[in-house]
């Protein structure tokens, strides 16, 4: 009998998108991401099948699956459930062993955790009270500016004269944006202003956590270069970003399925 290689999967069932990552002995075999579309069950099954078929691995060869995220309970297959923050922390630890803090900026929530040298959650905070610290703020402003979410980061980086909002409330900033556009403000300057406002809110949240470097930024926010720069400026530290910032929790889930290592 030869030893078959072992495979582990992590599935992150989020409210907006569902992600799966498949890992082998020492590498990422495949990843998949799709819109949740209101049916966590089917979407979770599909992403798992997706990574297995991409990697050419049969379902019965999986040695372990960990699911996480808001809809983790609705997956149709047998899997261990772990909180998203534990998965995020483990994912960051496996990608960047020097990471001690992770900031996850999602569509609705911003979460921050301290990472122990073993990749466990040492402390944890979440902002769910105010849209200013979340990706929602950007979505609202991008809609007014008619800028797609992918364009936000590159545009913001072009700004030479970021708009200073007189308010830190996303709702008031929305009407201020309309006035600023009427006054002739440029889209890049408005976006850079939004990035600054968000970053200052995130920095306020992190102050309570007493951050330690290295800091990793994950979630949709990690894909936005303008936001990454603003957060890095506001915190005064360099911010690391995974290659696929939205997949880091699913990746961490796979690492946890493997016993907390990669």
């Amino acid at each position, binding site marked *: 009998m030869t030893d078959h290689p072992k495979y582990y999967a992590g599935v992150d069932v989020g409210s907006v998108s569902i992600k799966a990552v498949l890992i082998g002995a020492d590498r990422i075999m495949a990843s998949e991401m799709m819109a949740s579309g209101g049916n966590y069950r089917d979407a979770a099954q599909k992403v798992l099948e997706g990574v297995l078929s991409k990697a050419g691995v049969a379902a019965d060869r999986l040695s372990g699956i960990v699911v996480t995220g808001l809809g983790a309970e609705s997956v149709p297959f047998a899997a261990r459930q772990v909180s998203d923050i534990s998965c995020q922390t483990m994912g960051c630890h496996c990608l960047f062993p020097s990471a001690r803090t992770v900031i996850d900026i999602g569509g609705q929530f911003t979460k921050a955790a301290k990472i122990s040298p073993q990749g466990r959650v040492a402390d944890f905070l979440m902002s769910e009270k105010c849209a200013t610290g979340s990706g929602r703020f950007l979505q609202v402003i991008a809609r007014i500016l008619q800028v797609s979410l992918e364009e936000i980061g590159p545009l913001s980086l072009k700004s030479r004269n970021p708009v200073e909002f007189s308010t830190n409330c996303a709702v*008031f900033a929305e*009407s201020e944006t309309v*006035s600023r556009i009427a006054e002739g403000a440029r889209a890049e300057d408005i976006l850079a202003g939004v990035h600054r406002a968000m970053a200052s809110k995130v920095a306020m949240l992190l102050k309570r956590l007493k951050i330690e470097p290295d800091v990793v930024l994950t979630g949709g926010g990690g894909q936005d270069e303008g936001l990454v720069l603003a957060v890095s400026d506001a915190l005064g530290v360099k911010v690391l970003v995974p290659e696929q910032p939205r997949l880091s929790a699913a990746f961490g889930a796979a690492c946890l399925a493997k016993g907390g290592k990669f």
Partner: protein
Amino acid sequence: MPFAGIDIGSTMTKVVIVDENETTLASVIGPTGVEHRHLALEVMDEAIGRSGLSYEALDFIVATGYGRMNVPFADKQITEITCHARGIRAIFPTVRIIIDIGGQDSKGIKIDAAGKVANFVMNDKCAAGTGRFLEVIAETLGVKLADMGDVSLAAKGYVKISNTCTVFAEHEVTSRLAEGATIPEIVAGLHESIAGRVVNMVRHLGIEKDVVVTGGGAKDVGLIKAIEEKVGFTVRIPPEPFITGALGAALLGKGFVERGITRDHERRLEGVTFFR
């Protein structure tokens, strides 16, 4: 001797002109306008027209509200806190607490027995607990802002809205609708939420009878009912809840003239522009 008060709010501009007997000669409410804030000036012109007077005939003009600076024809600028307190003293002398729910802020003002401002609290940092919150959600629900009160009163119960943030509450409301909650239950839930937030803020002042509610929020019977449930007694509502600040401004102007206090600066009517 006529005196004018102009209260330039974030949403509405209010002008009141009174004579030396404190009788109202004209009272006009109009939009401040988002991009065309010169509409505030039209409200002033309208009030002057209705009173049959001219700018020159006005013995004193006091400007108040968020847009009170840069009103070139005003003789003095006074904060809306002082003006509201003065206006309310004229309408309801027994009031000790004013809850003002405006378009972009909400405040609580405590008045002492002599009618002076003893303390105040204010939220202008966040749309929660302001008229803006109601406006945004009304639009999401497809309910006219003016109908929110009646819709709320028609509810048999209310759906708890747990998000204070307007942006998140908008999302929550959509989810509750999808789950089958009725619009009246949701509107009643929103009123419950705003009333809770505003009353909690005003509690820092120590709530004492009588309480008056002013501003656009006072026009919403559903919100008033929710506030009354929180404070535990009936609150007073002025006959015209929008104009208490402008009335107070006009009355303060009368007081200045009576005490021989002169204008801060010369009036300028040429090329009048606001917010420049």
